């Protein structure tokens, strides 16, 4: 399941639900992304996530489908927020449930790597020193590349 939303989410309730997805779920792995305050000499005041409505949902549904094809998952959840967030706010939740832990761990890492490089979100940070657009990181591209290497 995917959701692109302004509202916060309840990670515990979602993990609980995915753990009950199927009597054979033994492992639930979650990733929660949190807004970092960053460098103490130039703290973050707020961050605004812009996205491309329509394409975002399409992209998340596509990476969910890819993960389900690669691993035997009993359930998958991707929640990504947009709008203005403060330090310590949650940005993203990815949860995968599977019979065994290896599939759940790999699927969540795969989903995060694809999310970072494919999902049409952009971050504008309001820092003490001014406003900046966050640049894409080259290590995110290499993290994603590992899934297509072999």
């Amino acid at each position: 399941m995917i959701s692109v939303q302004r509202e916060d989410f309840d990670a515990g309730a979602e993990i609980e639900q995915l753990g009950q997805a199927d009597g054979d779920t033994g492992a639930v792995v979650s990733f929660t992304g949190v807004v970092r305050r960053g460098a103490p000499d130039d703290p973050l005041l707020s961050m605004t996530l812009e996205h491309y409505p329509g394409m975002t949902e399409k992209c998340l549904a596509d990476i969910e489908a890819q993960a389900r094809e690669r691993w035997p998952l009993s359930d998958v959840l991707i929640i990504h927020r947009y709008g203005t967030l403060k330090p310590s706010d949650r940005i993203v939740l990815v949860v995968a449930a599977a019979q065994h832990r290896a599939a759940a761990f790999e699927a969540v890492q795969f989903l995060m790597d694809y999310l970072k490089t494919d999902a049409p979100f952009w971050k504008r940070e309001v820092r003490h020193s001014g406003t900046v657009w966050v640049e894409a990181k080259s290590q995110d591209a290499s993290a994603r590349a590992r899934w297509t290497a072999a």
Partner: protein
Amino acid sequence: MKILYFAWVKAKIGKGEEDLTPPEDVRSVQALVHWLQARGEGYAEAFADQTRIRAAVNQDHADFAAAIGPNDEIAFFPPVTGG
């Protein structure tokens, strides 16, 4: 043709969305970029460094060689930074 801009591309161009009818020979993302660059200072500035621009055609990531037609939705934006 529906054209969308996001993040600093949108900020430089000064709008998020517009409906345009480029000439018939604009049949690729690259040709559209060239045509847009001539539309004014904001556009010229937004597309000055094309290595910093990504595109989507009908909500799928596309490279600049991708073909486009009058009924397509084309979007331009910086490399994404979700997650």
